[in-house]
């Protein structure tokens, strides 16, 4: 018998991971397919914490801004259309250098789209999403266990770097249940789960100015040159994060002739295809980016010029651009993607690999 595992959904695992990490403020607005998060937070938020069902996504993200400014660990969650609404607040959070955790359980778009799983918000997540020169750290769990672990980690990273961190999942990851071990910070994905100290002194937080000079939380810099200075500070922070926070998993990459590149749910389907192909003697591997920003560069640094990459996405080619930047023309890159509720399946992957292998 396996000790201390429970069967929960990805959405519940994210919520439980947040509570485990000391999240004491949650504000959200219902939207499918992530409603289990808001329901779980309503039920399980500890007595000393605050749960608010906000009047809109705009209000929810700005409440997170306020709670974070007040010095506590704060989170909101939504799905694609709701995340579009939150972009205003996310930009302000980034500009004011506040830590926060934002969960996007992606669904089909554009517009109201549908509620099927998708990965079509990759650009929005990894390029900032709102106005201004900023980034979020973006983490993409590939299992329910990882959803739990990475949510905990995201609070530490947010505090350490004073940056908004996004957990980017999709409807399948949010809805499916898997056994999860509720440990404090596991290390299921390879790459490094460096655990920064969980208690960072938030001497910038708004608590009342007793015994100190007043603190100001702001992203407005009108004096000439001041905004450029603030931006350069952000950029220096991003540079450190790029160096230290790449996360990824590699599977069979050392002997592979074709390397699949996929994240989240798509990587799970890729693994199914790989296990079929490997048992048929085909040398296929996988690079699974876990941090989407910073996008992992190291695993793409392969000397073998004859390796081919096949990028798989539940979108029409967004992460593809980051793979092209990382590979930098050294090897050939192919793409297979579906969106709007369509998900590439094992057979389609296998067929595509056959076509690629025949091309020289």
């Amino acid at each position, binding site marked *: *018998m*396996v000790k201390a*595992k429970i*069967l929960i959904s990805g959405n519940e695992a994210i919520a439980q991971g947040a509570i485990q990490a000391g999240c004491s403020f949650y504000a959200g607005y219902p939207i*499918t*397919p992530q409603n289990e998060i808001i329901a779980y937070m309503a039920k399980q938020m500890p007595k000393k914490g605050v749960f608010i069902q906000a009047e809109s996504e705009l209000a929810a993200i700005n409440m997170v801004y306020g709670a974070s400014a007040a010095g506590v660990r704060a989170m909101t969650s939504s799905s694609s259309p709701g995340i579009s609404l939150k972009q205003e607040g996310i930009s302000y959070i980034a500009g004011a250098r506040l830590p926060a955790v934002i969960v996007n359980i992606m669904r089909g778009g554009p517009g109201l789209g549908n*509620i099927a799983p998708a990965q079509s918000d990759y650009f929005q997540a990894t390029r900032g999403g709102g106005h201004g020169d900023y980034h979020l750290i973006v983490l993409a769990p590939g299992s329910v266990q990882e959803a739990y672990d990475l949510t905990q980690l995201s609070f530490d990273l947010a505090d350490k770097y004073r940056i908004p961190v996004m957990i980017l999942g999709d*409807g*399948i990851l949010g*809805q*499916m*249940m*898997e*056994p999860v071990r509720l440990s404090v910070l596991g290390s299921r994905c390879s790459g490094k789960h460096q655990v920064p100290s969980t208690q960072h002194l938030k001497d910038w937080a708004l608590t009342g100015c007793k015994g100190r000079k007043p603190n100001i939380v702001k992203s407005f810099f009108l004096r000439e040159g001041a905004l450029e200075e603030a931006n350069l500070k952000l950029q220096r922070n991003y540079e450190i994060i790029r160096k230290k926070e790449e996360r990824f998993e590699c599977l069979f990459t050392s002997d592979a002739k074709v390397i699949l590149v996929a994240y989240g*749910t798509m990587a*799970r*389907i*890729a*693994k*199914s*295809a*790989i*296990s079929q192909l490997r048992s048929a003697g085909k040398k296929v591997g996988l690079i699974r980016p876990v941090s989407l920003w910073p996008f992992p560069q190291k695993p793409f640094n392969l000397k073998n010029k004859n390796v081919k990459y096949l990028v798989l996405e539940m979108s029409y080619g967004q992460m593809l651009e980051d793979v092209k930047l990382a590979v930098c023309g050294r090897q050939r890159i192919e793409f297979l993607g579906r969106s709007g509720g369509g*998900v590439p*399946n*094992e*057979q389609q992957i296998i067929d595509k690999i056959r076509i690629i292998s025949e091309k020289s």
Partner: protein
Amino acid sequence: MIERIIIAGSGGQGVMLLGKVLAQTAMLEGKQVTWFPAYGPEVRGGTSHCMVTISDQEIGSPYITRADTLIILNNPSLERFKGMISSKGLLILNSSLAKIDADTKIKILQFPFTDIAIKLGNIKVANMVALGYYAQVKKIIKVKNILKVFKSIAPAGNLKILEVNQQALEEGARLNHG
């Protein structure tokens, strides 16, 4: 070993619960497992399904395109999912509410789960009759472990519910012998 099961019926027949109990039992037995529900807007009435994958190795896709076992509780679900069964797959059918032509090439085992449940005094436990039958036929999970799961998830203080579900499960498990 990998076993991919699609369970489908009408909303309210308890297919989600059937799948969850199956998944929990597999977890209890130390197996890898995923449970993935249809999460459309249906709440009651429409067709409802979930996908359970059980394996002794890491599971890739939780989404099933070719099922090893289909557990079907009504006719609309049969129409929707019968094409998704693999050539060596097994169809377990609730003959109370679904009919299929005898000449299909797949292996079919059918029993009137709903009628059996009515005889037990609670139409809602047809799902557990089907689960008991599945467990006995496929031998992937053990009936005694399903009973353990029942005890862990049954609402406290409602022994009657637990009892009728147990009866349903055991009734389903006996069908194979008869």
